[in-house]
């Protein structure tokens, strides 16, 4: 398995896109921090951009990478290797290079300007989100045979998680505003890893007051250790479940 991971990572690193992504994150975070005199405000600005960029790059790059590695995968499958090993190596290679790019590009500036618990939380969530969206990309790529369709599905998934889901939640919130749905909102937020990540960081920033009564309910839940533990667990599920489903599919796929 180690050998295949090695070749995947070498191949990804040879790709200039990864370098460009790292540099882009680096320039972005450094400029945001230097624009704001208050680094906490800078962190908030960075959060909003990262929640858009990181999932987008993770999911699109990984999907395209899987399709472009079709030959590589075909070559490996006819060799004495387990299919599970091949797929897990692709996942590990992609996830570790996406995480590394995030750590270098956004992690270092955050550590320079805001090396406290909020900063660490943000780096951790960023890394987990990178892995989550690589995992979702793998599932999208294994389910659809056609490259254009697969990339389309990946873009739609990103749109869903970063825009449509929030619209949907707002709609529900307004429709049921006469009922006490705040507790339900906690459960609903578990359905979207991006929302979960955003809430966890915002609560660490102590700006939850901005979120009104729902914010208070969130604080009651996510503020506790059990709530925090549960949300991390759900985030990890978001990383593990799609890749597990994709392995099951890949094992029976005809190449």
């Amino acid at each position, binding site marked *: 398995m180690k*050998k*295949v991971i090695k*070749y995947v990572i070498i*191949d990804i690193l*040879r790709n200039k896109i990864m370098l460009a992504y790292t540099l882009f994150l680096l320039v972005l975070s450094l400029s945001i921090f230097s624009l704001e005199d208050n680094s906490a405000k800078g962190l908030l600005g960075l959060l909003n951009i990262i929640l858009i960029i990181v999932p987008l790059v993770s999911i699109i790059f990984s999907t395209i990478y899987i399709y472009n*590695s*079709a*030959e*590589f995968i*075909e*070559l*490996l*499958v*006819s*060799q*004495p*290797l*387990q*299919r599970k090993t091949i797929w897990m190596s692709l996942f590990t290679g992609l996830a570790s290079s996406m995480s590394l790019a995030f750590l270098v590009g956004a992690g270092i500036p955050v550590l320079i300007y805001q090396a406290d618990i909020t900063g660490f939380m943000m780096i951790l969530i960023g890394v987990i989100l990178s892995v989550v969206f690589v995992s979702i990309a793998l599932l999208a790529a294994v389910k659809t045979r056609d490259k254009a369709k697969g990339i389309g599905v990946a873009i739609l998934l990103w749109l869903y998680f970063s825009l449509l889901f929030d619209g949907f939640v707002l709609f529900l919130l307004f429709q049921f505003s006469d009922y006490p749905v705040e507790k339900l909102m906690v459960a609903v937020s578990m359905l979207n890893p991006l929302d979960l990540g955003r809430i966890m960081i915002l609560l660490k920033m102590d700006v939850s007051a901005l979120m009104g009564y729902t914010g208070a309910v969130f604080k009651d839940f996510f503020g506790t250790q059990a709530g925090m533990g549960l949300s991390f667990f759900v985030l990890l599920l978001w990383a593990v479940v799609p890749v597990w489903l994709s392995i099951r599919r890949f094992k*029976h*796929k*005809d*190449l």
Partner: protein
Amino acid sequence: MIIANNVSKKFGSLFALNDFSVTCNKGECIALIGPNGSGKTTFIKTILGMVVCDSGFITFNGSNIKNDWQYRSRIGYMPQIGRYPENMTIGQVLDMMKDIRKSAQQQILDEDLINLFNLKPLMNKRMRTLSGGTRQKVSAALAFLFNPEVLILDEPTAGLDPVSSEILKEKIIAEKQKGKLVLITSHILSELDDLVTQVIYMQDGILCFHKTISQLTEDTGQAKLAKAIAHVMQKQ
């Protein structure tokens, strides 16, 4: 050595393999012959586990291949269309395969074909810049590289120049004499004449016959394989 039992595989509504059963033993050189789309490549891919069959099973040395993967270290496979990572060089592909297969089995590498095809000076060329024939040479070199007990060659000489296909044919004969099992598909029947000992003829995923060459010549009265097969096809 390789036994297929009632293997069926459907692509959509089309049967690529239909209740296909066949036994291949050591030391045989078997030609898989049939019209286009008769399921030859699908059969090869099911042996390699690249295509998972819908029903039936295949055993390799007596054990079911379904949940096994180590048996593939005993097979050298030359695909019909060799597809390799485009931005790797020939040398990198060879090194990668050596690296991946090394731990599976410690064996002596057979670099005959690399030398005979004169691939050494091309080692730094990227796969995407190669011609179809050179790609085919790389595929062949890879299939023979690990001294496998079973060689599966899907249209090995398609795209090769006469000199190279002669080199490949001689190599195949040499390996056959070492007691290996060789499975070949080809549409150029005339060049199979001095290679094969048995013929599997299939049509629409169904096994039509599996005979030795001597039996086939006896049945059809034709000495040449091409004529014998033509005789069979006309009769149908």
